[in-house]
């Protein structure tokens, strides 16, 4: 393969992976699937499809690639780019119905913020269920006879993934910092500054969840990061014999940390996005009167926030602090028993969340409807 032939896909899948990259939607075969092979669905983000094909190598399965505009499943579903309409479209246009003897479709759990499972079932006659949240759990899920273990519903943030996300932030930040610093402090000090910033970014990702990256306390993290990166750079600069650059280096580190503060939290699987709340914090509320214990919400929660209360046959919000306000439970509840409430008492009812997904939900608060006021427990 030529150098650009290798380098460009690498660049696309690492430093440029925050940008969408689309592969062709439609039906793909993994191995030699027959009429009884499982049917799995995903979006058409190039990296996801490549990883799926890798983890499923050696098995036989049908892979339906829905058009998610080249965005990964979670972000596409949360942004309204991967919905039940896209799932229905690929079921019908791919001809999968003629290739398999069954009518069972496994959806990625993280698509639950956008794909209304029950609409897929009603319109296609397929039975649609949630598979594991993470694609690397698919082999175990298949080996177990297509059953999801509870731990596979909860989002982990393993070291290799932290490294990837840290790189996504560190690469542009250090490049811009180095380019801006060179004319101000010279090449050696600029490199010291950029490397220190990069090191601190990796450090922040490594220290999660011990460092706060959401709420007002996140400013402690970023101020500490700026001081540490600025101090490291100034120290290195002093050792290299430079002097008088500490101010520039600290300034660059401060700007870099301000860039991170825009939404570092939203690029992890453990925190709510800062931007979507638009400065208007909202929390999940359960109307226990309406809850019938269908438990759709329990099956789609990526943070294990919701649990079944066995005795009462109702759901309860067991871990409110862990909620990342992704909206999956609100979208999936067949009884509209879950909704978001803002600090000022206004709400985002289920219909609103289903229409706009999480896009700037913080700006979309509405007064509590008077005819059918949601109650909270």
């Amino acid at each position, binding site marked *: 393969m030529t150098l650009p032939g290798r380098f460009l896909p690498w660049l696309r899948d690492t430093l440029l992976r925050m940008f969408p990259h689309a592969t062709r939607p439609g039906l793909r075969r993994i191995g030699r699937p027959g009429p009884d092979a499982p049917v799995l669905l995903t979006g058409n983000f190039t990296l996801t499809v490549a990883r799926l094909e890798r983890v499923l190598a050696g098995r036989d399965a049908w892979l339906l690639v829905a058009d998610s505009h080249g965005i990964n499943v979670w972000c*596409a579903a949360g942004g309204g780019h991967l919905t039940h309409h896209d799932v229905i479209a690929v079921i019908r246009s791919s001809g999968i119905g003629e290739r398999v003897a069954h009518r069972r479709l496994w959806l990625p759990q993280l698509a639950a913020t956008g794909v209304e499972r029950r609409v897929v079932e009603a319109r296609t006659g397929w039975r649609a269920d949630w598979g594991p949240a993470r694609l690397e759990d698919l082999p175990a899920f298949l080996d177990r006879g297509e059953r999801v273990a509870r731990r596979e519903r909860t989002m982990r943030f393993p070291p290799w993934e932290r490294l990837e996300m840290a790189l996504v932030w560190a690469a542009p930040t250090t490049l811009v910092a180095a380019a801006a610093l060179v004319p101000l402090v010279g090449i050696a000090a600029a490199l010291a500054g950029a490397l220190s910033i990069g090191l601190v970014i990796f450090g922040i990702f490594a220290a999660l969840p011990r460092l706060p990256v959401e709420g007002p306390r996140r400013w402690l993290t970023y101020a500490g990061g700026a001081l540490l990166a600025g101090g490291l750079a100034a120290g290195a600069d002093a050792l290299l014999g430079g002097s008088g650059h500490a101010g520039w280096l600290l300034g660059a580190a401060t700007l870099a940390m301000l860039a991170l503060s825009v939404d570092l939290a939203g690029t992890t699987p453990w925190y709510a996005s800062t931007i979507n709340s638009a400065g208007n914090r909202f929390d999940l509320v359960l109307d226990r009167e309406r809850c019938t214990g269908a438990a759709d919400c329990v099956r789609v929660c990526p943070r294990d926030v919701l649990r079944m209360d066995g005795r009462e046959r109702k759901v309860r919000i067991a871990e409110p602090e862990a909620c990342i306000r992704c909206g999956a439970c609100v979208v999936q509840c067949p009884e509209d028993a879950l909704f978001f409430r803002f600090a000022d008492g206004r709400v985002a009812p289920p219909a609103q969340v289903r229409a706009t997904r999480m896009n700037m939900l913080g700006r979309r608060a509405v007064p509590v409807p008077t005819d059918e006021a949601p109650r909270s427990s």
Partner: protein
Amino acid sequence: MSSYVYMKVLESTPERYDRGMRLLSRGRIDGLWEAVAERAAAPGRRVLDVGCGTGGVTLACARRGARVTGLDKDAGMLAVARAKAAAAGLAVDWLEAGVMELEDVVEPGGFDAVVSCLAMSELLPEERAYALARLARALAPGGLLVLADEVRPAGRLARLGWSLARAPRAALTWLLAARLTHPVDGLADEARAAGFVDVTEERLPPGDFALVSARAPAPPPEVRP
């Protein structure tokens, strides 16, 4: 997670869609909507707008007195369309469904005209074949189909000029609305393949928009589910 940053920058794009399309089409998008409505809509006529988006064509048809149904899979776009219709005092039926779900939400033969503007190009070729066959079924025998989409001009040099002239506007539009139109060639042939008759194609000056008009055959072709 990885597209989060990108997604955040472009969120709530339906509100910016109309501005984006005006920019990309150099202000000609309103003329295109009117051209489609002029061919398809008349007082009392039942018109279905497939992929209605923010309701540009839908409202142009409703203003001409047609009984219009707007269909789109994007709930956010429909919310903008609803608000525009309410502001203009026009009554329209809105349906949230994709083109591939047409058979689930509309009765066969229930429309005198089906229009679709800049939506066929959003589909994959195999989806278009499926969708065009369903559009034929949604129409009453002899009903009118009007498709409008972007096309590339014929000839290599003209295409190069078109691409170069479009690139900066396309980049701006994408930044503004997170959406682009995609040129599609051969819509007229695809309509013929789906069973439509009397297929004609016009180019709107300066030649980068095509209007395909056709009639549903009578009786409508059988489509296997």
